[in-house]
């Protein structure tokens, strides 16, 4: 087994372990920190696939910005020591059924999809680099890219409008 493959297995083990810990940990702060670890290991997978741009953006956007906001909210909610609210048996059973169904659907979809086998002759190892990504986005997928940016702009304007103070509202 060469070093890349053994590193892949180690990384996968770490990913699955931290993902499981997100669900299992009782303290929400620990859950968030394990989720951040999961993002890091996923970035490791991207680097193994030679997709460095995706790895860096994954860290910046998810680990650097979104998870900080998660941590924010949870820290404010959780000022006291964790009071575990009692979960009824009904919720537990419902959660198990829903989770199991999602797993079965995903597994079925995975079985059905035909993933092309890896072909070393036609495979371009530079495909994940930022240059080829930029060419792809701005040449072949320009319209979807612009539509997505308009969507984000609309969401941003909406957020600003929601956060705006109305006339006559109390000034803090």
């Amino acid at each position, binding site marked *: 087994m060469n070093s890349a493959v053994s590193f892949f297995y180690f990384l996968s083990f770490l990913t699955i372990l931290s993902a499981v810990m997100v669900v299992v940990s009782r303290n929400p*702060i620990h859950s968030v920190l394990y989720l951040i670890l999961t993002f890091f290991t996923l970035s490791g997978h991207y680097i193994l696939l030679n997709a*460095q741009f995706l790895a*860096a*953006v994954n*860290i910046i956007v998810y*680990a650097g910005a979104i998870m*900080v906001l998660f941590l*924010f909210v949870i*820290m404010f909610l959780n000022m006291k020591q964790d009071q575990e609210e009692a979960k009824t048996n009904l919720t537990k059973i419902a959660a198990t059924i829903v989770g199991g169904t999602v797993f079965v659907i995903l597994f079925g979809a995975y079985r059905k999809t035909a993933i092309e086998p890896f072909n070393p002759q036609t495979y371009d190892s530079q495909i994940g680099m*930022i240059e080829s990504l930029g060419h792809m986005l701005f040449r072949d997928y320009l319209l979807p890219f612009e539509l997505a940016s308009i969507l984000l702009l609309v969401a941003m304007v909406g957020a600003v409008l929601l956060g705006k103070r109305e006339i006559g509202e109390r000034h803090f």
Partner: protein
Amino acid sequence: MDLVEFLVKTVTIVAVFGLTLLIAMYSTWAERKVAGFIQDRSGPNRAGWGGLLQPLADAGKMFFKEDFIPALANKWLFIAGPSLAMLTALLASAVIPFGSTFRIAGHEVALQGVESNIGILYVFGVVALGVYGIMVGGWASNNKFSLLGAIRAASQNISYEVAMGLSLIAILMMSSSLSLGEIVAQQHGMNWNIFYQPLGFIIFITCSFAECNRVPFDLPECETELVGGYHTEYGSMKLGFYLFAEYINMFISSAIISVLYFGGYNYPGMDFVYAQLVKSFGPDTGHNIATLIGTAVFFGKALFFVFFYMWVRWTIPRFRYDQLMNLGWKKLIPLAIFNIIITGAAVLFLKPVITAWLN
């Protein structure tokens, strides 16, 4: 990668690591000396000549103090906080080009930990992670003032990261490369980005003050409002790590500023010096000596910005929190977007005209 290259890289990384720590250590001494000079007093002058052994004395004191963890604190996260702060502070130096190349036994090795084609994004990602050390430590202390300090630090860092990223985009549009080595190489021959991007530089340096939690943006540890901020409950070396991480961040951001805007290891007349050195020492030794001079110039630039941080700290009073947020969101971000538009227009329309006129 063969053995020679590997050895040079290893030596570079270890030397950079050691130098970062050493510079951070003596920044604490320099900070007090600069403060003493600005406030017309002598500063530390008891330990060693001119107080030069003061950092060692401080470190000794920090190490031998009682390692105290509050009873209601979350023990693991309380320890993880300062460790994360140190870790993220030290990570960023991996992609900084400290000099041009070394020629050893027919190999040409760049004086840089990792040459990566996403260098600047890596730095940006590591900077974005710097929040966690503060937030985790502040929350784990189980103290309202610590938590408020941590929240302030995090919201400040997130807000200023936006403007920082936008000011970087203008640089990237000009260099059309994300690799720091490439950006420095393009500034050869006094083509320093500061001449093309003065507005971007001002935005960037303001944001880096805010990212390092330095005065005038040191709201997270504002004593008059928050006792001691996120490290209220910390003592001994754990507090030392937090303070040390701040100085490392200062040095790293100074290095980044000199790479992005002040030409890194380039200096005026370097081609002449290079030719003279090659003529008198031969191609290999001459090249290596020229590289070393470039590295010294690079450190000189970086240390000047470290001094600039200290100068500002003892000159400008602290902002109020709403002023800080207004500056970040309502002034710096529109300015940065304006800068991007101007840069884009100049690259598209002005550059061809000037190039045609010069030829």
